[in-house]
């Protein structure tokens, strides 16, 4: 299988700058009914390759806002953000789409699989949207990831026909299909029962062990304990260390 050029570029950049994420003075202010509300005041954060970081904070602390910024879902903020050696702050929405596609893999709390597609098609979507591989190669990559997640015999099933644990594993396979520089997990166990949650955390731990860079947002200290590093969001700033 061909390595996607984007992955090669990303790893080349990472070799020079081992930092996957570098945030400097990132601030975000919402306007709610004309009243400015500071979600993030000034966040400085560095995450190096291979780290497994849990971001914690009370609800309303701005951890979701931080996740959106990290995931290039929200481009309207102040400060500087370098992702895998590329300055992404101030870039237009159109130029962020391919970066999001190649550099970031999302794992959502409620999976966000498309219900009308098979999980094979779901997992192939990021590769298909990347448009740098043949259709068959996209599906081959998706199949490989799904087999690794233990879903080899469920490829043609719709998400609705799977257990919730299987659904989250399919979503993880989808997040990995473009070999991203960063895996972003937003409360990945929030919708799971404790047994399934353990299983998913194990999968994330295995990915970390294999060298992946993971950032996980959670409010659950037990979940955060799986990570190798803890970042607390308090008063709109990031604080390293235990709660």
């Amino acid at each position: 299988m061909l390595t996607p050029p984007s992955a090669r570029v990303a790893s080349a950049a990472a070799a020079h700058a081992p930092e996957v994420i570098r945030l400097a003075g990132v601030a975000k202010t919402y306007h709610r009914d004309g009243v400015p509300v500071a979600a993030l005041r000034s966040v400085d954060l560095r995450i190096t390759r291979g780290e497994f970081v849990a971001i914690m904070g009370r609800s309303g602390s701005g951890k979701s806002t931080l996740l959106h910024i990290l995931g290039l879902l929200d481009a309207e903020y102040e400060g500087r953000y370098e992702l895998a050696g590329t300055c992404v702050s101030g870039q237009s929405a159109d130029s962020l789409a391919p970066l999001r596609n190649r550099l970031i893999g999302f794992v959502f709390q409620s999976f966000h699989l498309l219900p009308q597609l098979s999980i094979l098609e779901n997992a192939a979507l990021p590769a298909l949207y990347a448009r740098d591989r043949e259709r068959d190669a996209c599906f081959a990559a998706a199949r490989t990831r799904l087999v690794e997640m233990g879903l080899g015999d469920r490829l043609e099933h719709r998400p609705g026909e799977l257990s919730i644990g299987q659904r989250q594993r399919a979503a993880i396979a989808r997040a990995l299909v473009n070999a991203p520089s960063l895996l972003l997990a937003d409360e990945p166990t929030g919708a799971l029962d404790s047994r399934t949650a353990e299983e998913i955390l194990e999968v994330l731990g295995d990915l970390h062990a294999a060298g992946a860079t993971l950032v996980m947002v959670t409010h659950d200290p037990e979940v955060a304990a799986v990570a190798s590093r803890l970042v607390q969001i308090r008063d709109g700033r990031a604080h390293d260390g235990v709660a």
Partner: protein
Amino acid sequence: MAGPTTAWLRLLLRFALDGLAGQRGRSGLTMLGMAIGTASVVSVVSIGLLGRAYVVSLIEGVGSNLVFAYGTGDGVNPEEVAFDDLDVFRARVPGVRAMAPVLSSTETMSIGSEPEVVNVLGATPEYAPVRNLVTVSGRFPTQAEERSAEKVCVVSRELARRLWGDRPPGSDEWLRVFGLRFHVVGVYREGVESAAAVQKSEAAGLTVIVPFSTFRNLSPVRTVDVVYFQAQSPQAVSGVVDAVREVLKSRHHALSSFKVESLQGYLVLAQRVSDAVTLGLIAIAAVSLLVGGIGIMNIMLVTVTERTRDIGIRLALGAGRRDILLQFLLEAGILSLAGGIAGVVIGAILPWYAGVLYGVDVPVSALSVVVAFGVSLAVGLFFGLVPARKAANMNIVDALGYE
């Protein structure tokens, strides 16, 4: 952008089809709206063409490439076409296929017990083809009968009905004309019975036609009522009109006593009128196309709203705004195109089938099919643009269901 564009389009087409398949009933109804709009445009054009062909056939039914000259009887010193003029017409008017001078008088006959005024025409055998007269039964007087000035006649269908009812006249029916017995050899009618609408038709109503020479010998009438010329082609018509005018001018005091006319003027007018009516009808039909387009916009707006999360997920996975825009434009395009195809089929088959039922040759304009097709696609894309832009410009965070 890397990657072959056709593969990319195929992918987006696939997504678009998936989207439409997810809401079959709604897609079908939207297509139906488009189909009705397209079908009405196509069939209205057919109706317009049919009306135009009908009007043209009415006018041409009087006689194709026809030029006619007659004295109006108006003015200080009214003049009429003289017998001598006819030989000059034959010699000096080029481009004429056939010439048919007509003499005219009236005769009072008693039909049943009523006295009726009947037109008596004297005409050469060319008169029948030039004026598009059809024999209902029997025949017209022949050239031989014309040469020897036989006392034979044909009667109009109206007159035949009054005289003999619905049965055709026997072989030994006679009519008294100019005080003499004329053998009835046939019954005729006009090819298109609307000639009167275009101009006075001397052959309409209660009419007897006798050979020109017989009329000339027996009647005191010394002027020609009207002369018909059949030009060799439509292009030759105006030349014939000019040449006939020249002859009349050179042989009479004033051209103002005469009228030399062709049906071309009526044809052009009729075509213009039917074109204007067709255009008006198309404008009305286009409204339904517009309504269909608004239906597409409406449905696509609902679809985009319903699929907000789907769109958010695709954007989060790295779909570009162009990808989303094109996917929804394709959905709208497919709806309108499929509706357009169905509409063209309905709009072409319905008039055709009606034509088969009523034994009429209904024209279906290929141009109208192409235009209706193109317009329906354009309408779909135009009205699809607003919802597609709404989809493409979604805020990802909101679309994913945060907050």
